[in-house]
């Protein structure tokens, strides 16, 4: 427990934040990567 945040709350927040941060970082990385690839192809 952190304050009143119980284990289930901690799991939920970790999963939700992890999913969002992970996907967002992946998306931006993929955009940079594909832009780089397109430039090198051209």
């Amino acid at each position: 427990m952190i304050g009143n945040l119980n284990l289930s709350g901690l799991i939920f927040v970790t999963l939700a934040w992890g999913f969002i941060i992970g996907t967002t970082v992946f998306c931006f990385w993929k955009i940079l990567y594909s832009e780089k690839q397109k430039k090198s192809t051209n």
Partner: protein
Amino acid sequence: MNPEKQAREMWATRIGLILAMAGNAIGLGNFLRFPVKAAQNGGGAFMIPYFIALLLLGIPLMWVEWSIGRFGGQFGYGSSVGALGQLTKSRRAAMIANFFGFLGITVPLAFAIYYTYIESWTLAYSFFSLTSQYSGLLSFEEMSKFLIGFQGKESNIHFTGLSVALLFFILTVGLNYYVIERGISKGIERLAKIALPLLFIFAIILVIRIWTIGTPDPLKPENSVINGFAYLWNPDFTYMTKASTWLAAAGQIFFTLSIGTGSILTYASYLKHKDDIALTGLTTSMTNEFAEVILGGSIAIPVAVAFFGLAQTEQIARGGTFDLGFVAMPVIFQNMPFGEIFGMLWFSLLFFAGITSSVALCSPAMAFLQDQIGLTRRKAAGVVGAALLFFGLPVVFFLKYGFLDEMDFWAGTFGLVLFALVEVVLFSWIFGMKEAWKEMTSGADIRIPGIFKFIIKYISPLYLVGLLVIWGYQDGIPILLMKDRNPQDIPYLWSARLMILTISAVTIYLIWRAYKKGTLSYKSRTEIRED
């Protein structure tokens, strides 16, 4: 004028497009509506239906709107009028679809009219905060009186009329006009490149400040930010069995991603045919989720619990988003050192979120007036700006009679879901899933999982029908029949409906004129505009 031969604007950069689309999605709801809905519907348990709705409703419908927009843009159509017709296979079907496309102009414009007024409050409150206009109003009741006075619901010691509200409303409409008049790359894209980074910087500063407050009153150790966070995230699984929780989650996803407003469609129409929409669309959605769940969930509710305690925060959350944003937050900031600055940051952040959304809501009407009616960009912006101002005045003057709430239901709730249903049915059933999939995945920088064919064709439309039926039954019928309304409000509520009907009638007339002029027709695939 031949629209397909006229050079249409284009996004200058991919990051500009992402920021503009994210700005369209990130609105006041990310920072006010989401935390209230999550807290009211089981906290962490709310996130289960929320993420399910994101996967089954939000992301698929977002891809659908992007695809229709980019497809329509290839024929010179920048709004649902024209773009929806191209999804059909005959001239007659195209005409029917295009007339249904009036929803994609009327709904966002009506939405923009009252949204701009709420946006003007955020501009006014950032000015009030910086100039200490509400300084010393340290209780919820006093600050509530300030808001009521500002909104003109009563004349009190703070405000004796609507002149200040009106002034900020006119200023906000002027700023919106300034942006849309400059067009896509020099107006909307440039605004997004400035406003979005500032929004994120301000939000991060506020999160850091709030998370270092700890326990403001040492005599009440239970009133802390972490306990506020726990209130938002500790799951109450009993809510999972309630239909209202699933409905609230689906509604939140719908509103937060700006689905059914037609603005995604218009923005995507300025893409080239081979531009990626799969990854870019997903990126904008996830940027919006970052702003909503991570930043939005870490500001208002946690700090409200720290200052007001759990019981009063629950009461504030029940009072709605305006009580949280415009009453509770100013009281909290006044209790902090440099509260004027933090208050200004909070309301500026809301203003940036608001203006990037309101210019997007104006964009379908802008595109239609330019592409089909043949107006220059300046004239189109003049017409849209005048509509915001002219139709916005009754919203300002008659707020206390429920004028804004009435518009919010018909345009901002019912209209959005109805238009999204029209889009998804036309795309997956009339255009056909095979063609639709080809269109969605053309130029894609990521592979969209095949399961989304099934989701888009069956699950998303069913979800929307469910939303329409349940909302219609729960809220629509009582609102339609004006049950339990004060008799003196009724003429104003009818006026709000009449206003939406007038905007719809004018749009339908203009569609008919575009057909007569020849600027709107069903085009064969060989007429695809060359980029």
